[in-house]
């Protein structure tokens, strides 16, 4: 299993997302997953091999590396991407469920021609009712996971800059030993980039939440026919 098959799984959800959702998915795939795979992995590729400590003591390198890098940036970002994308599958499941019901209805009603069944497959689902709630929950979870990982990142690696030199004195290193990180500047660049894109994704998710809520409110207000105030509010919202 690799990112390509993951992409195949996720892009099915794309059709039923809002416009902002599609933008979010594109940003995720292009600016995060693609950059991770094509660029960032080669930057961090030799992080252990070229982590050099100023000592001949065997084992000191390993121990110091382990002390300063409990989990590599690459793995953290990979886990973050997986966790952040997973709530979309909730929506996909719900849509599949609804489609299945529709199919059953059609079949029961006798409309079993391939054209009808095809129509169910290609029909775009409106985000209403229970699906709206599922979608909202998935968005909230996305924001939650994204923020949690950003916080975790901050806890493990405070600051965005990659250090050039670390001083280490864990056993078996004798006294304090200077250790040098490989490609610190390049790593800093990519760290800033990935953090910035995470922030953009969070903003997109929040914007999508607001958009969905506003749409639902305006729809609700439009439906309430006996409310002049409602009509006025919905008109105001639409003019946005």
């Amino acid at each position, binding site marked *: *299993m*690799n*990112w390509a*098959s*993951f992409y195949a*799984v996720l892009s099915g959800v794309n059709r039923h997302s809002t416009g902002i959702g599609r933008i979010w998915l594109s940003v995720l795939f292009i600016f995060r997953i693609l950059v991770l795979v094509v660029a960032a*992995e080669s930057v961090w590729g030799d992080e*252990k*091999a070229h982590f050099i400590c100023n000592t001949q*003591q*065997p*084992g000191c*390198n*390993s*121990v110091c*590396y*382990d002390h300063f*890098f*409990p*989990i*590599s940036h*690459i*793995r953290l970002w*990979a*886990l973050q991407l*997986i966790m952040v994308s*997973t709530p979309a*599958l909730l929506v996909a*499941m719900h849509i599949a*469920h*609804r489609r*299945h*019901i529709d199919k*059953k*209805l059609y*079949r*029961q*009603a*006798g*409309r*079993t021609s391939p054209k009808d*069944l095809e129509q169910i497959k290609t029909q775009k689902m409106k985000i209403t*009712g*229970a699906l709206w709630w599922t979608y909202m929950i998935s968005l909230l979870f996305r924001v939650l996971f994204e923020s949690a990982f950003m916080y975790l990142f901050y806890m493990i690696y405070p600051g965005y800059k990659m250090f050039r030199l670390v001083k280490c004195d864990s*056993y*078996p290193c004798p006294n304090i030993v200077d250790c040098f990180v490989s490609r610190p500047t390049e790593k800093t660049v990519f760290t800033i980039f990935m953090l910035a894109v995470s922030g953009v994704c969070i903003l997109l998710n929040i914007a999508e939440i607001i958009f969905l809520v506003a749409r639902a409110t305006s729809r609700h207000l439009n439906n309430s026919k006996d409310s002049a105030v409602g009509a006025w509010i919905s008109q105001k919202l639409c003019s946005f």
Partner: protein
Amino acid sequence: MGDWNLLGSILEEVHIHSTIVGKIWLTILFIFRMLVLGVAAEDVWDDEQSEFVCNTEQPGCKNVCYDQAFPISLIRYWVLQIIFVSSPSLVYMGHALYRLRTLEKQRHKKKAQLKVELEETEALEDHKRIEKELKKLDEQKKVRKAPLRGSLLRTYVLHILTRSVVEVGFIVGQYVLYGIGLAPLYKCERDPCPNSVDCFVSRPTEKSIFMIFMLVIAGASLFLNLLEIFHLGVRKIKQTIYGSKYNGDEDSVCRSKKNSMVQQVCILTNSSPQKHMHLTHTSLAVVPDKQTESLPLYMPMAGPPPSHEVPKGDPSGSEQPPRENRLPSQPEFQTLQQLGATERRSTLDSRLHSCSSEESGPKGSGPPRNVGEQPRASLRASHIEIPAALRKQSRVSQCKDFSEESDSPESGNYPTARKASFMSRGLSESPSDSPDSKSGSDTEANRIAQGESPAITPPPAAGRRMSMSMILELSSIMKK
């Protein structure tokens, strides 16, 4: 990592034949195990041996110490775990495909037989009946999933149990081999190392994080397996208690009140006898009998009130086979579409008024041999319902339910309306049901009613429909 494509494509096929919990389990397997293994964990264990450093110059010492510290690399171990945990699903899938093929053959045979019958018969009604059966068979053709019953159900349960056992085995194995986390220092005393040698593991913290992660995911998979076993077990128990009358699988979708369009269609659409009737406002016990639907959570279909169907049916016979599948006619379907399109309550009311009118009409007409097809039809409907199941009776009663509900000025929420109609139905229970047709079901109903009556205040009239709704009430309470 190598090519997961083969296993992935096979598991996609398994996906089709799984229940909803099975599908979630498969998704977790794909994403949290295979994907994480492929894109993240492998890189961590890449330099496992090359960066395993020992504080000695003794040739060979590092190799033997590495071998002692890591009998099997955790990456390979997890790959084996995934393969072994997936393999029972392959066995189940094989059985499901075999069953599907058998069903297909049966269907073909029956179709050929019916075609022969069609050519032979002269009577118009027989013609119609046979044509309907043929249509029904054509419908079944579309089913790509073998229904989960009989030996297939046994295979399914067995495969889940095997999966759980294998999962537990691998979790215990990982704990025995490596514990919860990896220590950075490993002291080695194996030949040819002189005395005790310090060896250092590369990236122990990162590896510990992934070990814990994979343990948690394995635990989650195990939990899902147990959940599925429990779910199937509960269904079986309820089936034993209530008898093989209910299939809650179809109910569950209709039960969820989120989609009231589905609810209405559930009331009004037809269901084959294999599929169980949906009772919209009931949270019926999920009980798969031998005819359990293959997709447990996707079965919302219920039959329309028989009064709509039966006029098309056999006017003479009161022995329509219980397994008949009545398709809604074109006008019915248009009504269905109308339901979806227009305001829910209004269509519901109109639909049910028509339903109730048809129901009440025959009710007043007395014994089944009255003139007019409709009264006969509706009573025939009750004839038909009895041998089939109590669930079919509830369809009629359900129709009455809603008619009562729509009659009341405020239709409130469903449960209260149901209770109201429950009582009113009890009061208005007509004795016009012919004894011979109802006796069988009455005994069943009475048996069930006796079983349930302690839990519910007995209604004034202890009719068949009364006990039916009592059961529904009870099961809905129990569900909550």
